């Protein structure tokens, strides 16, 4: 099964817009950029409303790193972290990060996500965890919290975890992929909405220059603005005309 590619979508949109505004300077990359807005919008909406693996991306070997010095802001010496390998949808409760896990068994047959899974927390919520012996961050009970593009890992300070597996809801970025024939990973039923939204934005942008045209009307002098209601010449005749039965 082949999904729609950005070349098909953007090419169709570009052609449609050029048909309507044939003298407009609309580049193909501009259309791709507009499509990007709405692909991300509708994909995010789908992620929030349905449970589908279509939008999940798995990164099996994301290296665990440790800051060696404090750097303002957001880099704290001695804390283990991973860099998110791609930009993600910013959903509630860091929902763009579906899971982070590491395998605690060398050469385990089970998939990586069945290993120890990091539970999401925040720097403020993490304090409570240390109050309960069962919730204290530990290799058996690890946590993560996100600060911008860094995702800090709690509970594995004392052990050597080199890589973690990460499942992310990544955003669509056609400019980093540099492949117009890459499949557009979104529900085919949503393509129509993307198409319509891009056409709308294109039409809107094309209409904006008309406001800057000099139409000859003076809108700056308020005294010349009619103060009474303007009535058409045939208004009276129209009122006297009996209504047809």
């Amino acid at each position, binding site marked *: 099964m082949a999904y729609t590619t950005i070349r098909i979508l953007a090419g169709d949109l570009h052609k449609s817009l050029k048909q309507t505004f044939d003298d407009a300077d609309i580049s193909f990359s501009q259309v791709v950029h507009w499509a990007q807005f709405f692909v991300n919008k509708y994909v995010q909406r789908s992620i929030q409303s349905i449970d589908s693996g279509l939008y999940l991306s798995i990164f099996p070997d994301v290296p665990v790193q440790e800051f060696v010095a404090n750097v303002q802001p957001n880099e704290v010496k001695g804390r283990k972290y991973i860099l998110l390998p791609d930009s993600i949808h910013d959903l509630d409760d860091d929902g763009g990060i579906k899971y982070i896990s590491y395998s605690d068994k060398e050469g385990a047959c089970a998939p990586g996500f069945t290993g120890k899974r990091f539970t999401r927390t925040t720097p403020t919520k993490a304090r409570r965890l240390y109050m309960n012996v*069962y919730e204290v961050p530990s290799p058996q*009970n690890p*946590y993560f919290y996100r600060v911008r593009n860094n995702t800090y890992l709690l509970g594995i300070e004392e052990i050597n975890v080199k890589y973690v597996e990460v499942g992310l809801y990544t955003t669509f970025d056609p400019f980093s992929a540099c492949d117009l024939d890459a499949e557009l990973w979104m529900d085919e039923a949503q393509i129509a909405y993307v198409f319509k939204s891009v056409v709308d934005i294109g039409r809107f942008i094309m209409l904006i220059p008309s406001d800057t045209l000099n139409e000859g009307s003076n809108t700056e002098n308020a005294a010349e603005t009619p103060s009474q209601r303007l009535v058409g010449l045939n208004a009276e005749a129209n009122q006297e005309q009996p209504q047809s039965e």
Partner: protein
Amino acid sequence: MNFSPQSAISVDQIMSDVILELNDDDHKLFTPGYYVSQIQQALEELSLDTFLNEYYSDYKFPSETLSIEMPKGAFNIRTVYVFSGGCCNVETATQCHFKRGYITNGANNGYTARNKIDALDPFISPYHYDNEVYYFSLQNGNVLLSSKCIGFENVRLVYNGVITNIGDVPIIPLPFRQAVKEYVLERCYRILKGRNPKYYRPLWMDTYQTLTTPFDGTWDKALSRARSVDSKELEDYKEYFMKMNY
């Protein structure tokens, strides 16, 4: 009722059921540790209600302090023995009896008690063999032994305790499976109904009812199972009682 430790239920089995019912596979609602903590608390409550779990611990006799701290998780001392020899070759052993109000600071420091051989109390007739018997009392989580016990090498405490000590991974007895599950669910829904009353309050009410309904509720069923006597034990009691010459 007794059960084999081999048939005990693991924490993961309970959590698997609970997170499915709460729709919390991603642990967005509660951390895994929170569930374990609630399972532990359910077992503590069941232990306190049922006195199901009976343990024993052996100690070297504290010949100076005459005092032993109650073991972690213990909440009801059933019997105290003092014995000579080792735990694998018990030689002389005797039971200690409870003495009300007995307090001592250690060997050769004397003691106070309501009933004492030299008490000048016209209302109480003291035991004349007060110093001849083996006894103990409980004070602030300490087992205080009488000076008569000096000479024995070891002390054995038999007590009821919570099924799993705090911090350990809980092990759930088979008869308690449903009660523990409902208890954890009820606690989780109780928190969730504070966040979203409209959605979670009916769920909490259903779970609360399933847990606490008298006789048919999972908690009452667990208690009745724990308190029921094994068939052999029951038959033997009947046998003994029938042969008494009333």
